């Protein structure tokens, strides 16, 4: 291959594109979409990050200064924890609107999503939620369609292709030049997006975020290269420019508009979730299987009296209510934890199925990978929720254990057979419960989580290259 000629064709193609008013219009539209999505993403990120950090500090302050009160009441009021928002949220906010970043950890039992911002979002949430990631996933391919459909077919329609080949330019050189021009344009767009992101998030950057951003950029390049290869092939294959445009537009609508909701529906059909009311019924039924308060109380008292070989509750070295609460908590965990875990397992299984479909639609692969690397996918939320649950279990155990071993039990004037909690705790006890700290897993974890999507994207990238080679052959046949 003579690279000089390839560069010449690339330059020529870029000049042609820059003189094309359609491209200018499309570039303007893309710029508008990116500006709006960046403005929206940055605004939401900054507001969320500021609100979360303010609320987190206030929450700790409240916890430490709640005065002297029963540990039971303190536990019931719970602790609000916040999922850290990565600056990559500017690029891709993922599922955050539907999971929320603030979670109330209640003393009673584990909870699913605590506060979904979507509940108080306006009716345009789904029509109007646009992120830079979505712009790259959906609208850049549309721009590419308008650039690529005529790349070969139009020159063939006007017989220009024959003249080009008559000048001893090989089909390979011709196609390489065209691809380089399109790829250059795509690289320019992706680089523009990444530079904008880096500028907007320059104060919060870290090595991990940099690595994630780089991987996201590479993912988008692979995704768009697959589009370029396919587009070029369609352009070479179709007999007219109009036909090429039609095929590409239909393909785009199928892959970029229809595939995500359709794949989600298919995943739901393959790994069905129960209706929420059925799930609630299941929990109620499970709650009926555990001991009632009275049964538990009797069992705990009998066991404690036997264990400490005493005949009166007054002689027990521990407060039976503390033991009761510990047992109650274990019972509640048996009711909620397996069900919530089961539900999250179904989500995971659905998401794997969804990523499996991405072998048929590349957008699903890049969407999953982009969300995952931005730390805004279901897996990241689950990782956070698991850490929060561990923290909740720890502090609830601590409070109940404090009641169990409260020395005041022995001297309290309250009759030790009632269900009154006589234990009170003060600031020194609250301070013994450390603040919730959460470390987001690194980018390797995120990539490994989406290995199916990564495989699918690699296959699509390879398919892009193969279709490019096929296009060259096709042009040669022309």
């Amino acid at each position, binding site marked *: 291959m003579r690279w000089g000629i390839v560069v010449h064709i690339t330059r020529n193609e870029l000049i042609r594109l820059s003189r094309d008013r*359609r491209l200018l*219009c*499309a570039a303007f*539209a893309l710029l508008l*979409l990116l500006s*709006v999505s960046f*403005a*929206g993403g940055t*605004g939401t990120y900054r507001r969320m990050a500021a*609100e*979360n950090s303010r*609320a987190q500090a206030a*929450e700790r302050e409240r916890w430490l200064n709640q005065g002297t009160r029963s540990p039971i009441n303190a536990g*019931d009021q*719970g602790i*609000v924890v916040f999922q850290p928002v990565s600056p990559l949220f500017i690029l891709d906010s*993922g*599922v955050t*609107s*539907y999971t*929320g970043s*603030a979670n109330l950890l209640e003393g009673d039992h584990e909870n699913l*999503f605590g*506060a979904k*911002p*979507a*509940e*108080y*979002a*306006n*009716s*345009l*949430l789904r*029509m*109007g*939620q*646009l992120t830079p990631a979505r712009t790259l996933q959906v*609208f850049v391919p549309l721009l590419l369609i*308008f650039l690529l*459909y005529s790349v070969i077919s139009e020159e063939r329609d006007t017989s220009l292709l024959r003249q080009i080949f008559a000048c001893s330019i090989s089909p390979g050189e011709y196609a390489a030049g065209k691809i380089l021009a399109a790829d250059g344009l795509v690289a320019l767009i992706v680089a523009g997006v990444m530079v904008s992101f880096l500028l907007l998030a320059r104060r919060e950057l870290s090595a991990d975020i940099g690595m994630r951003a780089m991987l996201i950029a590479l993912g988008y390049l692979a995704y768009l290269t697959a589009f370029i290869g396919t587009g070029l092939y369609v352009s070479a294959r179709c007999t007219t*420019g*109009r*036909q090429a*445009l*039609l095929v590409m537009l*239909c393909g785009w*609508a199928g892959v970029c*508009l229809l595939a995500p*909701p359709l794949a*989600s529906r298919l*995943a739901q059909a393959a790994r069905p979730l129960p*209706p*929420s*009311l059925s799930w*609630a019924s299941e929990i109620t039924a499970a709650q009926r299987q555990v001991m009632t308060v009275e049964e538990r109380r009797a069992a705990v008292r009998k066991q404690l009296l036997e264990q400490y070989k005493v005949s009166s509750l007054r002689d027990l070295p521990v407060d039976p209510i503390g033991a009761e609460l510990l047992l109650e908590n274990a019972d509640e965990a048996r009711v909620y934890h397996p069900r919530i875990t089961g*539900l999250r397992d*179904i*989500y995971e299984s659905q*998401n794997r199925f969804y990523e499996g479909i991405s072998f048929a639609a590349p957008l699903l692969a890049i969407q999953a990978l982009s969300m995952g690397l931005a730390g805004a996918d279901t897996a990241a*939320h689950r990782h956070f929720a698991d850490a929060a649950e561990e923290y909740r279990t720890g502090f609830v155990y601590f409070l109940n254990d404090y009641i169990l071993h409260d020395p005041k039990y022995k001297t309290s004037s309250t009759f030790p057979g009632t269900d009154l909690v006589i234990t009170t705790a003060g600031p020194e006890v609250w301070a013994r419960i450390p603040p919730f700290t959460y470390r987001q897993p690194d980018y390797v974890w995120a990539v490994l989580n989406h290995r199916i999507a990564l495989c699918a994207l690699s296959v699509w990238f390879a398919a892009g290259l193969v279709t490019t080679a096929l296009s060259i052959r096709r042009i040669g046949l022309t």
Partner: protein
Amino acid sequence: MFWKIARQHLLLEWRDPAALPVSIILAVLLVSISFSGVGRILEQRKAEERFEKEWRQVIQHTQAIDRAIEDRIAAGIEEEQLPPPFGARHPGYPYAWCKPAIIKPAAALSWLAEGKSDIYASGYAAPHFEPVEQIDNPLRLVNGNLDVAFVLVYLLPLCILILSFDLTGSDCETGLLRLTLAQPVRFSTLLSARLGASALPVLGAMFVAAAAIVPGIHRIRDDSDIGARLLMAAAATILYALFWWFAAAAVNSMRRSAPVNATILGSFWLLFVIFIPVTLHAAATFIYPVPPRAELIDAERSAPQRVAKLDQISLSRDFIAHHPEYGYASLDSVPGLGRVYAGSAAREEAEDRIIERETGRFREALRRQEGFIDGFSAFSPAILLNAVLTDLSGTGWRGEEAFQEQKERYVQRTIFFFRSREFRFPNGVFTSQEYDLIPFFEFQDEPVAGVIQRNRRALLWLTLIGGFMGVTFRYLSTRRFPDQIYA
């Protein structure tokens, strides 16, 4: 001449590899999505029935316990305890555990537009009417609903544009248009005939889909109300489609090449279906921000503490003074033990007020956002159609507000029912007959007249926008272009 051209264009379309597949895909999508939506509604209905039955069983079980106590008292085996212990004959017990569940029934038209029905709580249950949260996969929620509204708002215009971006473009490029116009035919007639012919596959697909869907709807509900709603949805859809057909015709009237037409129409689609909704959503959220959720969480959990700090006696006095329906002139006239319950009712109400105040801030921000969007919705027919379909289905924020209002009224009725019996203490018991009087919640759909009234404006705007596009098409198609001098 009109019919001749239309027939000719239809024949060309029949041979076109795009027209038939596009219309078949559209019809198949509409039918399959509708049926899958109907299936979901039926599944949801079954879950609702099961859920409600379970709570009814709880009531029946407690009533049976109460009846057994009554039988034992009648047989002289045991004596009535006054006040009764906390159990079946104590009004506080059924108040906590025998409140019937509040269920928001799956809307009969949610297959048309799911709206936010997959986000709002699907019901509320005892002991404190806690919400039964939706448990959908967040990724599915991000990807949006695959419902009829999605196909109509996003894909229908694309189908129209694909079939009509080249009504005259290719002919312009090849010079065939000039030859055609050399015949005794006007450009406007030619374009109108071709437009009509290109509209037929889409209309046919929609008609076939509607014919297939209607019998399926009878499985959910069959009344004139649904019929009227569907007619209005059909009218809005036709107006929306007309807008896109006229837009396509207007662009074709400019006599540019097919690719240029496609680019212009693609930009239109981007502008009306994507860009304006995105901008409006961002602007509404920015101008009327919703307070942080952490504030609502904090208000909910700190309400009891805040109320505990208030003067309890005056709280109870105010409660009795503001609730003449309980039939007590003052706190002093409430029987001894009843005062304790009056105090607890007063605290509960004060807590609710605090939470309501906080929730009110969220609702107000949302209402303002919706008002803002409503004010600018005329700029995008896609927003108008989406709003009409969601409102007709009752799955949007208005449907939720109506449900919340009914729920609130029911909650107040339930509280009054149980509390008034607690106030009779120490001399009152909750008899087994009273279990039959426990109020049940039944959601009443908004009368269709109200929905139509509310959506008249949106329909008017759709007509005006479509009409404007039609006039533009008419103007451009009758205007003399430089190439027409050869015609």
